[in-house]
């Protein structure tokens, strides 16, 4: 964790090693800690070699989808005569996720380095860091770091004296959840309304300004540096379960736990030990009831599922959810699930970009029904209607925001139907008795 506490002994701190270390934020401090060695090494290599190492390491996208990073980079065909772009998705707007915020706050130079490596690897001379509008502190540190890097000749026309050009720009979003979706992010970056674009064409064909573009998460790009320095094998062997999930992953934990914060563990770590040991277990006198393990848009896990989970891409899927962005929201027995889900639905209804019919109308409709049930005005038919709306909202729209709204509703009704029915039948959820019972 690093800040405000020391890392837990069972954490494996690769990316979060310098959290809480104020000196690591400066260029000198960062260089003293081994910074920019990876970039120096990268600029001496062929881009294809870098892509191969990253491919070999098994690094997968840390933003939510878990797409193999090396493969994504290899989609960028060199020598097509077009400018390539790298976009760093630092819009981290998934509710419950705040790992990128910590990375940018404490190790801004790590991201600058990651962006420069990534840009070089995909044949881009320009990288954009798209930072969420609300992230004022990360923005401050990132802008400062980029400025320092330019002043030191690390970025620019002659990056690190190699004669290669690497530019990094920091762009501040205006604060919309949907701008974390890669095509909406590109629209926003171009100065348009942040609406997702229809795919195909995929960003690797036509992305920012219509040019081939790769979009990577903050954590993914930062992870590329230690991989280059220590080799693919070093990274690959960091895997506790499935060999398809390698390396370390930051998990940001919030909700009803003793020690919320950002934890870095090797993929495949047992979720039960993570929750009870690293995070300190439930608050006094309470019991865990449910976990949303990957940000608000993944299915809710019951505790039985969560305790059986190994924390990797496949492990969460095997236990009825997804790794997502690693934003662990812990819910204890004092929380009414209907209220939690209604609040999540409201969030998605508020953030829907209004393009697709099912999303624009469906998220709002879902919210209205959920809030009605929450207020004790629901009917049994509402549950069927909710599931049917959710079905209409799944897999039929341009982006997955509408799916994301449907997911907690469907998993909530499936796994906590009793709470819905109790409210509908007039038995109000009582936190105190619920906690004691």
């Amino acid at each position, binding site marked *: 964790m690093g800040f405000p506490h020391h890392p837990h002994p069972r954490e494996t701190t690769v990316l979060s090693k310098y959290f809480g270390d104020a000196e690591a934020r400066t260029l000198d401090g960062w260089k003293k800690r081994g910074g920019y060695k990876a970039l120096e090494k990268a600029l001496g290599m062929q881009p294809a070699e870098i892509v191969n190492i990253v491919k070999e390491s098994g690094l997968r996208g840390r933003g939510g989808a878990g797409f193999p990073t090396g493969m994504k980079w290899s989609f960028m065909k060199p020598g097509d005569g077009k400018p390539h772009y790298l976009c760093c998705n630092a819009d981290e707007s998934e509710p419950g996720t705040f790992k990128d915020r910590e990375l940018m706050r404490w190790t801004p130079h790590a991201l600058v380095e990651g962006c420069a490596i990534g840009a070089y690897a995909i044949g881009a001379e320009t990288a954009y860091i798209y930072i969420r509008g609300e992230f004022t502190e990360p923005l401050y540190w990132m802008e400062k770091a980029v400025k320092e890097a330019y002043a030191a000749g690390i970025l620019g026309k002659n990056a690190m004296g190699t004669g290669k050009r690497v530019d990094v720009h920091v762009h501040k979003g205006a604060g919309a959840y949907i701008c974390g979706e890669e095509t909406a992010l590109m629209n926003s970056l171009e100065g348009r309304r942040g609406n997702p674009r*229809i795919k195909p064409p995929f960003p690797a064909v036509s992305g920012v300004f219509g040019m081939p573009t790769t979009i990577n998460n903050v954590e993914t790009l930062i992870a590329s540096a230690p991989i280059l320095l220590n080799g693919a094998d070093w990274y690959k062997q960091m895997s506790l379960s499935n060999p398809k999930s390698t390396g370390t992953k930051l998990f940001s934990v919030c909700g009803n736990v003793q020690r919320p914060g950002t934890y870095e563990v090797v993929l495949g770590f047992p979720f039960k030990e993570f929750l009870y040991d690293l995070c300190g277990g439930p608050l006094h006198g309470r019991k865990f009831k449910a976990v949303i393990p990957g940000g608000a848009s993944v299915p809710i896990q019951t505790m039985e599922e969560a305790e059986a989970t190994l924390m990797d891409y496949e492990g969460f899927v095997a236990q009825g959810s997804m790794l997502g962005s690693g934003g662990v929201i812990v819910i204890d027995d004092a929380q009414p699930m209907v209220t939690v889900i209604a609040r999540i639905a409201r969030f998605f209804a508020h953030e829907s970009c209004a393009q697709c019919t099912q999303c624009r109308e469906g998220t709002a409709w879902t919210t209205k029904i959920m809030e009605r049930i929450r207020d004790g005005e629901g009917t049994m038919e509402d549950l069927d209607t909710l599931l049917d709306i959710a079905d*209409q909202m799944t897999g039929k729209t341009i982006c997955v925001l509408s799916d994301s709204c449907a997911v907690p509703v469907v998993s909530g009704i499936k796994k906590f139907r009793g709470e819905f029915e109790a409210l509908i039948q007039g038995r109000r959820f009582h936190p105190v008795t619920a906690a004691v019972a």
Partner: protein
Amino acid sequence: MAEQKMVSLTIEDRPVTVPEGTTILEAAKIAGILIPHYCYHPGLPIAGVCRMCLVEVEKAPKLAPSCATTVAEGQVVHIYSDKSLDARKGVLEMLLINHPLDCPICDQSGECELQDYTYQEGREDSRYREPKRFNPAEDFGGDVIYVPNRCILCTRCVRFMDDVAHEPTLNVSERGDRALIGKFEGRDMTHPWAANVIDLCPVGALLSKDFLNKARAWELDRTASICPNCTQGCNVMMETRENQIVRMKPRPNEHVNAFFMCDWGRLNYRWMNEKNRAERPMVRQGATLAPTSWEAAITAAARAVSGKKVFVAASPMLSNESLFLLTELMQGGSGAFRVVEGEEAPLPGVEDLALRRERAANVYGAEKLGFRKTRELLGGLGQGDVLVVAGEDLAGIDSAALARAGDVIVISSVLPEAAAARASVVLPIANFSEEEGTVTNLRGRVQRFTQARQAPGETRPSWLVLGDLLGALGKQSSFFLPSEVFARLASANKAFAGLSYDTIGFKGLPLADAPAGPKTPVAVGAA
């Protein structure tokens, strides 16, 4: 054009072969199936947002938006499978949950795609039990009113203003279900082509102020015609109710106007409903014009013209047919016309489409047939010539200017004031909307227009009157149909050679010597 690769696929068990890059939606049209859609319009960039055109493509993991999915070799598409029907039913239900269902007071009712597809594929009832969203109607400026409650946010209007009119005026404001079409600060819908958004709007959200509450769509009679208001010759539907033209709407023609027409042309139809008409043939009896029979009037006119040199002051609103017959009447004389002019207003998103400077339907045809374009209409009128005023209103011309003329024959739908005192014979004719004929647009395209309303009183079509007059003069000229006049024209004038009403059809054909326009036909399907 480079050779296009063709792709074969199966849509609802029908084999189709279309050029590579065609969308499934367009391919289905070729197969004879209209996939329900809202945001897609062949004249606009693809948005893919309404999700109405979802279809099932075999081997694809998800339903595909057919407007944004291009065909692939061997593809098998199911439009009416359970999965696709269910998805579209879902979209329709979602579109209707916040819709006020006020069809009985909505102008779009009867020509509303939301109605059509709901009857076709929608649910019988709604499961929506919550309060509906409400936003007040807004005047968008120009001819456009916005009723947000009926809006389905297909963004056709936004895309038209951005990508066709090239004047970004509209946007989607707000997010989620609060979203509505908004206007940019300080902009409004006064662009000369802005009213096209009313036609583009598939529902009753964008309405014409001019047409507001005037008629129900099913009360209208629709006639294929040509907009007579400038030389562009936009293809239109003239819509009449109880013999009054109440609206003009563009009719797609990829060679002329794509899907659009300008606001000026669209709203300038009232002159065709003019009440103050010359309704009976008249001959001069002393100081007054006395009504008489057609036979007597034609005989009187023939007597006046016979053996004289004739000067024709024609209107460029007359059809090729009538102008041609007028040239036959000249007997060594000449003809001239003048044109009302205005400012040219192009539609930047469509090649060679503009509200033209010259505001009359048949300027090019009149010139082609030998009429001289002039500002001094009566400049060519010789001393003692018979003056035939054909369709010209003589506005701004002093009656003293007619003094040079011998007899004055008026062949017109409205008796011009300046000629009232001098006319020896008045032959009342139908106006543009009341007869059939052809006009030639500024690119030399001959286009047919048909009769949209009945002519008042005893008025007759101009070609019939002129034919009779020529007959009375002993020329071989007995016509029962305007097509016969056109056939005569085609055989007499090389430029028109080879054309006939049948070959011209309702999309028009260029004259043999038409200037090669820069026009590349835009892709046009059924809108």
